[in-house]
């Protein structure tokens, strides 16, 4: 029988931020946590409880102060940084609350940029794939528009297409609908979930939106996994 690895596994993960004078703020302490492959998890919790910090750690853009994080059985922080960057590009899609589209690039180029960094899809295929995925999220007619010429809902769709461009098995989303009005948020979320489910992706969303919470396989309150979430502590760490 084949072994099934969790999509994400955290062991003894801690994150503290230096405050100066040898003191630091401990923001995260997760002894153990895992996400099964193909699951859809909604992460909730009060503001400042470490949700974004946790997402950044799983994405590998922030380095844990202690512990290990594995994504599809790869200890991402055991990789040298350039390989970790490449791993992130190929295996993790990240949707930001404020979209973070690059203003100098069109919708199509924003998506292709992500493929360029991953270098996992042949160059001649990149354009076709970018057009396909943008069309899938309803932006087939907006390919050459720059972010500033798109509505907020369209911008978030571009951000979703960009996160999915390299067909990553893990998708992280930080309050993806927080900047959208209720109707647009509902539409965007439905498309986002549909695309992720079609691809059998593991989805971890930080959200307080009722619609998002309802659609999740599981809802996890960060205060249950982060031992420091309810009592941010200042202390000395070596």
């Amino acid at each position, binding site marked *: 029988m084949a072994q099934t690895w969790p999509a994400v596994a955290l062991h003894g993960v801690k994150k503290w931020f230096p405050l100066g004078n040898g003191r630091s703020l401990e923001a995260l302490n997760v002894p153990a946590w895992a996400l099964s492959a193909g699951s859809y998890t909604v992460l909730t919790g009060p503001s400042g409880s470490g949700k*974004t*910090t946790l997402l*950044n750690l799983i*994405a590998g*853009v*922030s380095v844990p102060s202690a512990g290990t994080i594995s994504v599809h059985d790869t200890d991402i922080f055991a990789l040298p*940084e*350039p390989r970790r*960057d*490449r791993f*992130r*590009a*190929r295996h993790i899609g*990240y949707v*930001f*609350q*404020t979209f*973070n589209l*690059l*203003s*100098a*690039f069109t919708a199509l*180029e924003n998506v*292709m*940029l*992500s*493929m*360029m*960094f*991953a270098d996992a899809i042949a160059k001649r295929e*990149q354009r076709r794939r970018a057009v396909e995925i943008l069309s899938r999220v309803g932006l087939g007619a907006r390919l050459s528009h720059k972010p500033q010429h798109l509505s907020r809902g369209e911008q978030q769709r571009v951000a979703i297409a*960009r996160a999915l461009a390299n067909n990553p098995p893990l998708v992280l989303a930080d309050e993806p609908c927080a900047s959208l009005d209720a109707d647009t948020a509902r539409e965007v979320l439905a498309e986002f979930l549909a695309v992720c489910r079609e691809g059998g992706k593991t989805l971890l969303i930080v959200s307080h939106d009722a619609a998002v919470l309802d659609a999740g396989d599981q809802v996890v309150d960060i205060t249950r996994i982060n031992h420091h979430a309810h009592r941010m502590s200042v202390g000395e760490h070596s």
Partner: protein
Amino acid sequence: MTILTVALKDLRGRFVASALTAVSLMLGVSLVIASVLIARGIKESFTEGTTDYSLVVGAKGSPTQLVLNVVFRMDVPTPNILYGTYRQLRDDPRVEVAVPVALGDAYQGFRFVATTGGYFAAFPWRRKVFEVSVGRFFRDDAPEQPTYEAVLGAEAARRTGLRIGDRFYEGEELAEYPLTVVGILRSTGTADDRAIFFSLASFWETNEISRKMRVKPLTAILVRARRMSDLPSLHRGLNVSAETQAVFPSAVLLGIFNLLSLAEEVLTVILATVAIVMLLYLFVSLYSATLERKREIATMRALGASRATILGIVLLESCALASLGGAAGILGGHGVAYLGASLLAARGGLVMNLFRMSALEPVVIGSVILLGALAGLLPAVLAYRTDVAENLAPLS
């Protein structure tokens, strides 16, 4: 998509700032190129335009003024000497060739030069070759039988539009002595391209004062000694006279070059300052652009761009701006130098060839790109070190 296209699109995304930076680079490079081209052109045109004659003989006064006026048609003419001086030199056994020259007014800014056919004669020691592209040389007419035939320098013919057979004169007082174009010279790349040549007899007849003079006037005599060893005695003999001076054109040129080298040293300091200002401007522009783009850089990093890729993008932006400004500056510099050379040629007799191939342009563009890369290095390192998580945080 490649990191070069990303860099270029980033530059286009901040079009106004990028354009202003490129324009400032262009202005700086134009200044450097134009200054170097003009300084080099002046030096070369003095070297190439100088006479092959060993002595220039004229009235007492400034040796520099005599050479500048007679050879380069610059400065104001020196006072006249007498035609008798020419006859003495012509008959002197130490002299191989003596050519009389009288400088008159100008037609549409092109100086009248009265001389004999000897001025155009070819000698084994002469580098300069005079050939007519159309027509013939004027005749050496007898003093009492002027033919009023004129031969135009190539530039003078081109600018005035005069053709063979055309009759022309400058000023109403000369209307009764029109000159007839009988030949047009091939370009020599010297002040002679901008001159209108005709015979001494014609000159003396058209000039009211000289017409009345019993002994006709000259401006100068170009002298070639038969032997080098004869030069000192000729030089001395002509200089002890109360009326004449003899000048070695090479000595005058040396003096001019000494003055020019001093100006060149000052120019080098100015150009070095311009280069530093350019470098600082590029640095400030890229540095502030990098500070403004920290969020975009963090986003690219979150999408999987490595630090090296980000470093490469910023350096490429810097090099692209430098290349663009440098290339435009080289074109602009040639344009400014061309205008400057035209102005100098119109006011004086320096004819510059600015468009010959040289190492200047590749050296300048290479240096500008290198300086661009240097200016982009710190912003690139700043981008390289951008903290991703910190800069991804939603804006408040």
